[in-house]
């Protein structure tokens, strides 16, 4: 009996993604390098998740992402203490929980990795939200370092020629800023190589996500949330290309071997908005218990969704246009077009929208999108209210009732 108690369930073991350990290794190495950058004579730049990191890679600067840090804080369930710390400092509870926890970490060196390495300079791109402008201004004052802001105009219908010129002009200013900070000229040949790797990484990431279109899906959106970190943090490096090639091969093998992430997958769902980082396991188990699999999401494909706009041989002129076109920097009509494609591609039975108290640009308009989806596509849609990092905004029994009721509706 004792042996049986410790023996692992072979079926469960079979379903585990083997590449995960490699991914953890890469992320650990990355953070060690970032934290020891100064000793190794390297510069560290903080950059927003939607920012053009490729230029930093080409300049041999280590990019660090406060948002990825926020996600780690959330996943480690350390968000509430840090949010409260920020609130004690005077930041509003309505402020984004990534911003709150990150600002609190700068002061306390708390969180899962003892705070981020201090930046030499900051790069802020407002294609993901307006909060980052003030957040990065706070960081610039706190660390007393220069801040570069890349302003990407919101796209209502089409991206105008004036807007294009505006962002391209800023890209050149960005290069000049980096040259000044690093005390060396940009190596454009190296930049071309980085662009090529970035685009290759994006394509591979999209191919990994696309494997979930297979029935049953070899991976879920919860797995995508985990594996996303690389395309955000190390885009433009060989490491990303190698890792996603390995992951893609594993997913294809899973399909060939008939391995499904959710055993008895019966209902396929699409997720909208950021993950609820501190409850990914609970949510994953909850949906699995209904034989439901979150096969895709609007969040993890946000990076690769714009890759076709990039000409890898002319990244300077095309990259900024692509970054301006990301999922949450566009109108509801354009978002709906993307949603439609995802719903079709993954052949889903329902849509689950996380109304994320932290992320206003992502959550604003979800009720309208819900109506559009239900009216035009006749797909049942559920909205759950939570927050990506601040657990105080998660009410288990309320969310459980909504999910159970939604699944009862789908099962009829």
């Amino acid at each position, binding site marked *: 009996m004792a042996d049986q108690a410790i023996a692992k369930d072979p079926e469960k073991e079979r379903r585990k993604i083997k590449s995960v350990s490699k991914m953890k290794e890469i992320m650990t190495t990355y953070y060690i390098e970032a934290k020891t950058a100064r000793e190794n004579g390297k510069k560290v730049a903080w950059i927003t998740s939607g920012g053009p990191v490729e230029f930093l890679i080409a300049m041999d600067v280590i990019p660090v992402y406060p948002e990825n840090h926020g996600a780690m804080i959330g996943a480690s369930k350390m968000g509430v203490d840090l949010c409260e710390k920020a609130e004690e400092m005077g930041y509003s509870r309505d402020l984004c929980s990534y911003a709150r926890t990150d600002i609190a970490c700068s002061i306390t060196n708390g969180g899962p990795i003892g705070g981020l390495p201090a930046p030499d300079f900051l790069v802020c791109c407002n294609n993901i939200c307006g909060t980052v402008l003030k957040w990065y201004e706070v960081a610039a004052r706190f660390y007393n370092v220069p801040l570069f802001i890349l302003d990407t105009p919101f796209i209502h219908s089409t991206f105008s020629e004036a807007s294009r010129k505006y962002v391209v002009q800023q890209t050149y200013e960005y290069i000049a800023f980096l040259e000044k900070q690093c005390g060396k000229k940009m190596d454009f040949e190296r930049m071309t190589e980085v662009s090529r790797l970035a685009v290759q990484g994006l394509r591979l990431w999209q191919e990994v996500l696309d494997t979930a279109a297979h029935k049953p899906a070899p991976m879920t959106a919860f797995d995508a949330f985990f594996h996303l970190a690389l395309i955000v943090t190390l885009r433009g490096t060989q490491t990303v290309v190698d890792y996603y090639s390995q992951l893609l091969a594993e997913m294809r093998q899973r399909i060939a071997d008939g391995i499904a992430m959710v055993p008895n997958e019966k209902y396929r769902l699409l997720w909208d908005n950021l993950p609820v980082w501190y409850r990914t396991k609970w949510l994953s188990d909850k949906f699995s218990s209904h034989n439901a699999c979150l096969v895709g999401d609007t969040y993890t494909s946000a990076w690769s969704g714009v890759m076709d706009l990039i000409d890898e041989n002319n990244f300077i002129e095309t990259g900024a246009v692509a970054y301006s076109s990301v999922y949450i920097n566009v109108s509801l009509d354009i978002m709906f077009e993307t949603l439609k494609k995802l719903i079709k591609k993954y052949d889903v039975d329902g849509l689950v929208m996380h109304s994320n108290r932290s992320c206003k640009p992502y959550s604003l308009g979800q009720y309208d999108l819900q109506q559009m989806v239900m009216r035009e596509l006749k797909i049942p849609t559920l909205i759950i209210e939570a927050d990506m990092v601040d657990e105080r905004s998660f*009410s288990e*029994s*309320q969310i459980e009732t*909504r999910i159970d009721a939604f699944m*009862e*509706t789908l099962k009829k």
Partner: protein
Amino acid sequence: MITAGIDIGSITAKAAILEDGRILGAKVLFTGYNSRLAGQAVLDDLIAEIGITRDRIEVIVATGYGRNSVDFADKAITEITCHAAGAHFIDPSVRFIIDIGGQDSKVIRIDENGRVVDFAMNDKCAAGTGRFLEVMARALEVDLDGFGDMSLKGETPAKISSICTVFAESEVISLISKGETRENIIAGIHESVASRVSALAKRVGVTEPVMMTGGVAKNIGALRALEIKLETVIRVSPHAQVNGALGAAVLAGGIALTKYS
């Protein structure tokens, strides 16, 4: 065939027993601290009242917030599905349900088979729920049973602008100190509940006929205010408060059929 439904809400526990599509009885008790014991007690009381033995109940379905704590039930089903089944059982023509319970208000659109098409629930806030009305009744020192009737006497409903139960209570206290009549204040409270719930209803899209269920359906003031807001006549079942339990008993019947087929 006899089946039972148990609905454990945040304030009250309800039980209903059906025999071949006929209601044998229903019962309401306060939930109190232990929801499992409440479920047991309300079922035992009802069995004693009806005068049947426990072993005659073929299937028990539990619903409501405490549904998973009723470990003697054969299945737990959410109150959304149960309210739909209950309303359809009472009146098959109903296509839309407004349920205002103790801690939540919900709206459910159903099809001709009593199945849920879409639903919405209030979020993380007690405004517009039974608990909100309880707090207000206490602040005004009015018995909850007389709350509805009194509200109909209010000629110019006071404006309650706050959407938060706690702040609304202080607003009510300041209205009292300004000399506003109780009737007008109560009418205003019901208007504020109605506007919150009607916003929820319009989000889902109201389809007639509409039925109101849950404990607050007994409150004529809330009912009238909702009818005005939604510009429709709202039906109220005589079993409004036990509608969830009734629906659970109906669904238990379906489970019993598959069990023997």
